[in-house]
């Protein structure tokens, strides 16, 4: 490690010198003869339970070293600048076709073994960075009629959302709009916003599917205004696009004080009970809660609702009075656990705070105890931080209570900038409230665990999840000062956001030195494996590599990751996610990297794994995300063993 650090300095000298598992039968019947019915990937999370698990066994720890690129395509939907694209889609494999949505609102349907184009549908609706979410997409959803009408179109449909709040439904075989879905194949979801319409809702995440109901959340901007769109979740008729039900985490009487608490991440569904599990986000404005002190139990929570009616079955709030933007940000992973001779229908909700929350999915009761732990008070006038927060001591949290120490290397090369900065700001560990002088937010808004969540082997209860070790600095700016500094701008440089209508604006800074080096000691990203039946941590290793100016930092440093792993029955974990634009296969037993391959940009979503005509494929979207690196791409790439 020291040698590498020294070598790093020498670099400077050189410069000077010059799946379908557990799915209901109606999905299985939609498969053609070429599919192995147990090895489709028909939802963002592999299946509606968000397990990210494949029963495929052709690629094993022994032969994965031989994995080669089978095919790749470039969609053309990539751009930087004001229309920068962020592509975190997971392709679907179903109906003998690979489907993927792009950040510019197009659906590509391609041959599973060659990548050859079958059809393209253009929904459009991408927008600029300044407008809600910009050009982003996390894929498409698939639905098949349980009793298809012979000879009729749209008995199998693909859905894609746009950044302008439209949900498009097209025939899965032809790519033609389904006339019976909304108006000529388009449902204007944004028009359903009933209050405080400040921006068009961004349909980034594909809906979950339960029988004939789509369950749809959306993304918004909860750091710009105090009062804005309430985060309504919609139950939609999969055939007609008609609105069946709504769920709102913000009580009606609070909607003149706050907004959002939307569901922007994935939603999982239990096909046996018909419960949908909604990970809700924080209310607006994100970082000052003095105007929304009333308890709202459904915000920053996991909420179980009836997938066909929206009726709440139970809710478990995981962050009280969120003033850190630590949304519950991934679809809960559903798995049956075996503990003390009993089978427990469970869900895992690893979260931004780096806690491993395991609940009984039928009741919301903790499988492993959740305690209320005391945390620091706010020193900001008007703010009342919750004195306690839910804490899960076991399974072992993914991040510790306090951020790592200041990096000696980063501090030395910046002439003490890091340590001086750290000394000026407030740092009392997890849940340090934002302050006017600046507070460490640990873990920061990137997590902990990001929106991909974890993967589980349902046969063994082995759970694998990537997590970040990133502090950021949160500063509140009194309104008068903010006006002087930024005028009436809603967003600005240095992570400024207005939180318009509240007493404070906000600034989010990355804790980096003058050279852009992290001011805290590595590792920056980890991959962990747990036995969920016992709660035991099986292994934890730094994951990925930081790449700066092309130089790869030591593997022991790990990388910030966005995306998620998948698990195969043969004992492999496939994951992209890291800054270094590599995709990797990892031994599920040991956590050792067995294979890696460079793709065109960071693969910031989980891959899809499927088997077609007897051959197993692992398909990554290599789209990149400006949060990680400026390297973006439009590559969809499949890997398989040579013939």
């Amino acid at each position, binding site marked *: 490690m020291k040698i590498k650090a020294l070598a790093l300095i*020498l670099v400077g000298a050189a410069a000077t010198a010059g799946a379908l598992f557990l799915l209901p039968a109606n999905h299985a019947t939609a498969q053609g003869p070429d599919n192995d019915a147990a090895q489709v990937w028909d939802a963002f999370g592999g299946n509606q339970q968000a397990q990210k698990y494949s029963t495929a066994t052709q690629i094993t720890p022994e032969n994965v070293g031989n994995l080669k690129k089978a095919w790749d395509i470039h969609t053309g939907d990539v751009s930087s600048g004001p229309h920068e694209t962020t592509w975190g889609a997971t392709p679907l494999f179903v109906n003998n076709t690979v489907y993927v949505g792009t950040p510019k609102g197009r659906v590509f349907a391609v041959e599973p073994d060659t990548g050859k184009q079958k059809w393209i549908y253009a929904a459009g609706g991408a927008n600029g960075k300044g407008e809600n979410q910009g050009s982003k997409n996390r894929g498409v959803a698939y639905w098949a009629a349980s009793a298809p009408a012979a000879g009729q179109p749209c008995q199998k449909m693909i859905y894609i959302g746009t950044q302008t709040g439209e949900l498009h439904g097209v025939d899965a075989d032809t790519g033609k709009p389904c006339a019976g879905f909304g108006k000529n194949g388009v449902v204007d979801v944004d028009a359903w916003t009933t209050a405080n319409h400040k921006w068009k809702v961004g349909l980034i995440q594909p809906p979950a599917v339960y029988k004939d109901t789509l369950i749809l959340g959306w993304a918004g901007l909860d750091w710009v205004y105090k009062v804005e769109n309430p985060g309504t979740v919609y139950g939609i008729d999969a055939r007609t696009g008609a609105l069946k039900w709504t769920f709102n985490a913000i009580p009606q009487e609070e909607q003149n004080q706050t907004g959002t608490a939307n569901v922007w991440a994935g939603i999982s569904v239990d096909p046996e009970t018909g419960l949908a599990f909604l990970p809700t986000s924080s209310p607006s404005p994100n970082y000052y809660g003095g105007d929304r002190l009333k308890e709202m139990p459904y915000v920053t929570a996991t909420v179980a609702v009836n997938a066909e009616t929206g009726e709440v079955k139970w809710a478990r709030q995981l962050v009280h009075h969120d003033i850190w933007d630590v949304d519950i940000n991934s679809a809960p992973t559903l798995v049956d656990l075996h503990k003390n001779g009993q089978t427990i229908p469970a869900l895992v909700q690893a979260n931004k705070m780096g806690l491993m929350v395991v609940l009984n999915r039928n009741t919301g009761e903790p499988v492993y105890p959740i305690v209320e732990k005391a945390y620091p008070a706010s020193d900001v006038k008007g703010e009342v931080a919750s004195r306690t927060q839910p804490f899960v001591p076991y399974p072992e949290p993914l991040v510790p209570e306090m951020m790592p120490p200041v990096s000696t290397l980063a501090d030395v090369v910046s002439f003490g900038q890091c340590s001086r900065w750290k000394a000026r700001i407030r740092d009392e560990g997890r849940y340090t409230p934002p302050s006017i002088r600046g507070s460490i937010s640990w873990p920061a808004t990137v997590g902990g665990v990001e929106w991909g969540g974890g993967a589980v082997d349902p046969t063994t209860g082995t759970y694998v999840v990537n997590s970040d070790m990133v502090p950021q600095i949160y500063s509140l700016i009194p309104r008068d000062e903010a006006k002087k500094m930024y005028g009436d701008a809603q967003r600005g440089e240095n992570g400024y956001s207005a939180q318009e209508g509240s007493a404070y604006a906000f600034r989010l800074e990355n804790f980096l030195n003058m050279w852009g080096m992290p001011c805290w000691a590595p590792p920056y990203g980890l991959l962990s494996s747990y036995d969920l039946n016992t709660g035991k941590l099986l292994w934890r290793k730094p994951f990925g590599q930081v790449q700066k100016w*092309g130089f790869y930092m030591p593997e022991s440093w790990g990388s910030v990751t966005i995306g998620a792993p998948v698990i195969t029955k043969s004992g492999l974990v496939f994951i992209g996610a890291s800054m270094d634009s590599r995709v990797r296969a990892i031994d599920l037993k040991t956590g050792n990297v067995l294979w890696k391959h460079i793709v065109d940009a960071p693969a910031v979503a989980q891959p899809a794994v499927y088997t077609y005509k007897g051959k197993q494929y692992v398909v990554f979207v290599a789209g990149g995300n400006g949060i990680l690196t400026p390297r973006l791409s439009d590559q969809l790439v499949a890997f398989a063993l040579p013939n």
Partner: protein
Amino acid sequence: MTSRHSTRGAWLIILASLIVMAICVYDYYTPETGLIGTGGTILVAVAGLLMLLAALVVAKVPNRSCLLQNFLVVSILLDIIGSSVAGYFLESPVIMAAEALALIGWLMNVIGDAADRSVEIDEVEDED
């Protein structure tokens, strides 16, 4: 005093420089390398260019001053070390191999130079 040693070492350094620059250009424009558009490849390419120029002087200017000779020898060595380290962090074995080639050329140059000096001294002693 002037230098008049064999230039084979210098030509080896020139060859290594050309390889380094070619690899950097390839890496800079090829997505599969993981180095597309990166500053690190530009840095190493520029270092390769500087090494090329220095080695050309060594090869083509036989009557160099002692000061220039020492400057070139030290500069080329620093370039080789720095570029090797950069190649290591770029995870580019080809760059590291080319730098090893350059190091061999540098050693040939230095050893040849020392031998030339020895001959010069012998000649001076003979004249005495």
